[in-house]
């Protein structure tokens, strides 16, 4: 098999949720950027069955080379199989950098791959760059995004990161681009998966987990009572988002524990966060470090939540919620 002499930046092709999540295309774009600085090629990995669509798509979005394995045995995602395949390829070809989308799959798979390759990994990066000494600068959030860390992998290769969807902008597609497509056979000694997939279905009741939701409607005790709180779901549904809750609300039984946002619960990173009747105790705001745009609604203008908001609406939370739902129903065009 041929070994490319040029440095290579690999991008793992994560296509399972292509229509909701274009993280692979975003990574290709960043890879193109990084490749210019360190003079490398951009190589996309595509494993699966009947994958020509993705080969075409990744070529159009910046890949110089595609390593593709098309086999019925790879019809569904498998951590163990993918691990064996990439471990094999990486040991053979020594990539300089591997970028993996911080999907749930990516975040489970990447740490194991890093361990197999005896290299470092930064999780959930929100920024990438090249340092003066030519290393991949990995900017990763901690403490609910309230802090950022600059991390490097000095001595070991490849330098690996997972990158949060939405961090980078994809390059507009160009279907006239050409890439070198290497169609590889499935490795002979593919390990048998020890984890058996008994059932899987695309979830209908929920489009995403609250950690990944781009719109979140959070409510606190200021909503008044359970029935008024339940109305937050109407708004969330209209906006295609999720409902989050503060601790007192969860413990009053107005919301499930899974909706708990903050120190003892989920850390969220929505593009838009509505915060209804929440005073903003640090136990809650600890989970909001990466909320992009915050609208807080509260009778009390002094509430911490109101001060950390982009838009602070001084009014009764429940009244505003009702009106907002009514008004949005009129205005939203599907």
């Amino acid at each position: 098999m041929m070994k490319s002499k040029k440095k290579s930046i690999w991008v793992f092709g994560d296509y399972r949720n292509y229509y909701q999540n274009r993280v692979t295309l975003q990574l290709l774009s960043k890879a193109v950027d990084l490749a210019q600085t360190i003079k490398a090629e951009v190589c996309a990995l595509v494993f699966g069955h009947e994958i020509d669509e993705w080969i075409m798509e990744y070529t159009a979005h910046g890949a110089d080379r595609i390593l593709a394995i098309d086999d019925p045995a790879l019809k569904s995602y498998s951590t163990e199989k993918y691990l064996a395949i990439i471990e094999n390829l990486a040991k053979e070809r020594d990539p300089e950098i591997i970028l993996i989308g911080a999907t749930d799959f990516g975040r489970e798979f990447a740490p194991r791959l890093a361990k197999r390759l005896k290299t470092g990994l930064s999780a959930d990066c929100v920024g990438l760059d090249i340092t003066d000494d030519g290393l991949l600068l990995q900017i990763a959030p901690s403490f609910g995004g309230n802090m950022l860390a600059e991390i490097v992998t000095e001595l070991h290769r490849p330098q690996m990161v997972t990158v949060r969807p939405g961090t980078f902008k994809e390059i507009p597609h160009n279907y006239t681009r050409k890439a070198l497509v290497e169609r590889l056979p499935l490795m002979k000694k593919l390990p048998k998966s020890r984890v058996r997939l008994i059932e899987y279905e695309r979830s209908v009741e929920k489009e995403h987990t609250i950690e990944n939701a781009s719109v979140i409607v959070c409510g606190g005790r200021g909503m008044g009572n359970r029935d008024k709180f339940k109305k937050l779901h109407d708004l969330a549904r209209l906006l295609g988002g999720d409902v989050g809750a503060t601790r007192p609300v969860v413990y009053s039984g107005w919301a499930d524990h899974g909706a708990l946002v903050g120190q003892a619960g989920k850390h969220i990173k929505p593009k838009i966060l509505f915060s209804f009747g929440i005073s903003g105790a640090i136990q809650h705001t600890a989970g909001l470090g990466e909320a992009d745009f915050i609208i807080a609604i509260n009778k009390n203008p002094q509430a911490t939540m109101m001060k950390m908001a982009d838009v602070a609406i001084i009014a009764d939370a429940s009244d505003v919620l009702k009106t907002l739902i009514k008004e949005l129903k009129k205005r939203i065009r599907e």
Partner: protein
Amino acid sequence: MLNLVVCLKQVPMVTELPWDAKTGTLRRDLAAGMMNPACKHALEAALQIKEKFSAHITVITMGPPAAEEVLREALALGADRAILICDKLLAGADTYATSLVLTAAIKKECPKFDLILCGAYTADSETAQVGPQLAEELDLPAAAYVEKLEIHGRTLRVRRMVDNFRETLEMEFPALVTVSMENYRPRYTELMGLENAFGGDGVIVLGAAALGINASLFKNKGSRTKVRKVFLRKTQKENVILQGTASAVVTEFLNKYQRKISTAIGKSIEGKLNDEE
């Protein structure tokens, strides 16, 4: 008898995070600690298994001497045995090194484990890496972000939700799971349990040497990543204030931000509507 191992981490309590205002860094040494919330869910999952089957729970943490506190808490909640891995040599370990050390401790102290449970992620660094890397080190079948566990003989069946897919997976013991925070709401600590947790046999403390780890080995096999800088994220907020009747503020809000909301929700929203509509 099922042999369960739960890996715990002590994380700083956000209510008491002492920031160094000048450098924008966290004085971790001063922060009060608590059991990482997801780890608490993992422990709860183990406790519920113990309520159904005959099981023995070992809890392990790696950290400074003060991390003993989370082990005592685990004992108070119903764990049977506690191990603290504590050594200056191990300070600042990344997930790669941490999983290596935990593996050594598990192999030494609980070689006959059936199931290892970890929290899906930690509230401080949030890497979600130690669990999967531990599975690699110990060469185990594993599943992350598990919401529900069932045990049938030597078979573990788990349910989880990953990337919009609801999955049911099965694997044989020994295995490893990382537990999400969807289920297994942690129980409250009984006061009697707390009192008992400080009597009895206490906590087993292991240094690096006891695990066969020395400085030169750790240099080669230890951390792969290096943190060059940590800083507070500063965000500039506009803090626009809207005030008035509900309908007035909603109209003003939507008129002003309709484009922003449209982009976020991927649907278009009409701008100004006539009041008659």
